[in-house]
Structure formats: structure tokens, C-alpha cells
């Protein structure tokens, strides 16, 4: 921010000590430097994701994998993630409103907006839990044939029942899908042909973990990066909610009235916006492109 005194200062005066050359307090400067290092960590994860993805020819399509809503089922590409993004943006807005109220020493305003920020963060975390649970459980799974072909199954109401000999009972309405999660038009195989393919099945797998996932049978890293990137981000959201809550309690107790300023709200605000910022990139690089 440009100053208002209009006095000329030499470089020596700025950097010579006795004043903050950056025009911010020590705490805020350190928060910024921490955020730079944290941003490098997240960039490392996202660029690592890009690297691995680039070494594969095929990669699951975001809008095909993430297309479910709680209670509503399938067929809503990216809507749920968009909702999560929107929740995080709104909680970022309430945070910046809390900071703004802090500059006016409006304690009631800070408490109101900070409470809403905490609630928004909790909503995001709960959404994340649902997203993970849905991702881990999967949507039907896939079978591998003795010839090495991979066919995904259509949506199943419940998991396949395993027989005593390790084979699986054929679902009543057998529906095999090609290109279910990959690029290109999905093709459905039903009836006698599907039963014939089922007869050559050598393996069945559904859901996702660190070793295998049904979305990219050839690339376990797809699920690995999902867990690590959204998990690391989710942990940031969790710690952000905790920090916001602590600051909220401090504000309520009147701890900052004594200091005469609400810079702590601003500093936690920086962290909270950073969490939002990271999600913007995760949203683009994991879900959209």
C-alpha cells in the first residue's frame, strides 16, 4: 500500500533496520513464507500427478468417474465437486468478510462471519468424506477375461456374491460396459454375448485402494493421487477449521480487544484462503482436464 507521508526514503533507510521493509508485521510475513513453502508441497504433488499421468496413454475421464450425488444416484457429471468448490469459495468469502469486520473493530461481525466460515469448512469436510467413501466403494467394478480383456460392469445394486470356489455369481441383469471411465463413447454389451464373455472371466475387482482401482485398472496411481492430493488438502481444511475455531473462541473471549487489533483473524484468513486456492487447482487438474 502506498504511503501517505510522501517523504522520500533511500534504500539504506528501508533496509537499514528499525522498520519493516515489507510493510507487514513479523507474523504476517512468516505466514506468507509458510504459505509459499506449503504451495511448493502441493505443486510437487500436482506436478507429480501430471508426470505419472503423462507416462500413460489412457487415463480415466473426470466427468465419468465423478458423476454421482448423495441420495440422487448417477448421471450428474462434476456437479458434486462443483458444489464442494462452491462451499469452499463461499467459506473463503465469509472469511474475508470477517477480516474486513476486524479492520472496523466490529467484534459481532467477526464472530458472525468466522462462525459461518467454520460451518462452511465442516460442510466441505463432510462432503469430502462422502466423496472418499463413494470413490473407495466404486460403481460396479470390472472383470478381466482369460484373454486379458477388461470389461466394466454396469451399475449394481449390491456387490457380486462370491461362490465357494472363488468364482462369482452372475448378476440377474448382466451389463458389460466398455469405455465406462475412459475416453470415447461407452458401449454396452448385454444378453447372450455378455454371458459368453462372463464365462471367460478370470478376475473380478471393484472399488479402489492403494493397489488397485476400478477406474483405471492399468494405473493404480490414479487412486493413489486421489487419496494423497485430496487427502492432504482435506487435512489442511481440517487444521484450518480447528485454527479458525480457536481464533473464534479467542475473539469471543475478548483476547484481541486487549491487543487493540484483530490481526490474528487476518493471519488465519490467509491460511484459509490458501486452502481455497489449492482446491481451485485440484479441481482443475484432477477433475476437469
Amino acid at each position: 500500500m502506498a504511503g501517505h507521508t510522501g517523504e522520500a526514503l533511500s534504500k539504506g533507510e528501508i533496509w537499514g533496520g528499525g522498520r519493516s521493509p515489507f510493510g507487514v508485521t513479523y507474523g504476517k510475513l512468516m505466514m506468507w513464507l509458510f504459505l509459499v513453502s506449503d504451495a511448493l508441497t502441493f505443486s510437487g504433488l500436482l506436478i507429480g500427478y501430471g508426470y505419472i499421468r503423462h507416462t500413460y496413454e489412457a487415463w480415466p475421464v473426470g466427468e465419468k468417474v465423478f458423476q454421482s450425488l448423495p441420495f440422487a444416484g448417477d448421471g450428474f457429471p462434476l456437479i458434486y465437486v462443483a458444489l464442494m468448490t462452491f462451499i469452499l469459495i463461499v467459506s473463503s468469502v465469509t472469511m474475508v468478510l470477517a477480516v474486513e469486520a476486524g479492520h472496523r473493530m466490529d467484534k459481532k461481525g467477526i464472530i458472525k462471519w468466522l462462525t459461518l466460515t467454520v460451518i462452511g469448512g465442516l460442510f466441505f469436510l463432510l462432503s469430502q468424506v462422502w466423496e472418499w467413501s463413494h470413490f473407495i466403494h466404486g460403481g460396479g467394478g470390472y472383470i478381466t477375461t482369460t484373454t486379458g480383456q477388461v470389461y466394466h460392469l454396469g451399475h449394481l445394486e449390491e456387490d457380486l456374491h462370491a461362490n465357494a470356489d472363488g468364482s462369482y455369481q452372475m448378476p440377474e441383469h448382466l451389463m458389460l460396459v466398455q469405455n465406462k471411465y475412459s475416453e470415447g463413447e461407452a458401449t454396452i454389451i448385454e444378453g447372450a454375448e455378455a454371458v459368453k464373455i462372463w464365462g471367460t472371466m478370470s478376475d473380478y475387482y471393484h472399488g479402489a485402494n492403494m493397489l488397485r482401482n476400478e477406474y483405471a485398472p492399468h494405473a493404480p496411481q490414479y487412486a493413489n493421487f486421489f487419496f494423497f492430493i485430496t487427502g492432504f488438502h482435506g487435512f489442511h481444511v481440517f487444521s484450518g477449521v480447528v485454527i479458525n475455531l480457536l481464533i473464534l473462541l479467542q475473539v469471543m473471549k475478548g483476547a484481541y480487544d486487549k491487543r487493540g487489533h484483530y490481526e490474528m483473524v487476518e493471519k488465519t484468513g490467509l491460511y484459509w484462503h490458501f486452502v481455497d486456492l489449492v482446491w481451485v487447482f485440484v479441481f482443475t487438474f484432477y477433475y476437469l482436464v
Partner: protein
Amino acid sequence: MERDDLIVNDSYAVNAKHDEAHGKEMRKTILKVTVILSLITAFEVLIGATIPRESGTALWTTVKFGFIFLTLVKAAYIVLKFMHLGDERRNLKFVVLLPYTAFILYLIFIAITESNYVFDMFQAG
């Protein structure tokens, strides 16, 4: 050089107090940024849900770089307005942005180069 180093004169400094008029102006900016961020996200989801991914086609390449551009726009609004780095002193902006940008551009370059090579090796068997 204008004297702008004193914390007292920084509008975000600890002891800078805003009056109601200033607050009103700031809330207007916040509302504007909120609308922009929400609209961009909605637009991205609309495009993502309607245009299927087809690697290698001109359309998809355009969409992909469009997404990346819109993401950078969103990031800029968050950093410059919400985190109000845009209002900070120039040397703080540089301390935050320059080392990060330099390192990340290098990392992106090296990751693309290396993964291209690995891809070719996998293809060659």
C-alpha cells in the same frame, strides 16, 4: 521514492482502522470477486460436463488450456483480492511470487520433458 514503509501507513497494518465507508467499498469488492469466482466455476463445470475429453483434438486442447487459464484467473483473484497481496508492498509481492514461480516453472518443464521420455520408453516396450 515515496515513503511507504511505515506500518502505520499500511491500510492492512495492525493499527490501521477502517471507517464504515471504507468497509462498504471493501464489501463491494468482495461481492464482485465472489460473483466472478462462482461464475467461472459454473462455466468450467458446464464445459467439463458437455464437451467430452478427446486427447489430441484441437477442440480438447483449446478447452484444456482454457481451463488452465481460467484457473489462473481464479487464483489471481483469490491471491490478489482475498489474500490482498495486491495491496501489499512491491517487495513482499516479489518475495512471495518470484521464488515460487521460478521454481515451479522449472519443475513443470522438467516433469514434462522427463515424462515424455518415459512415455516413449514404455511405448517402445
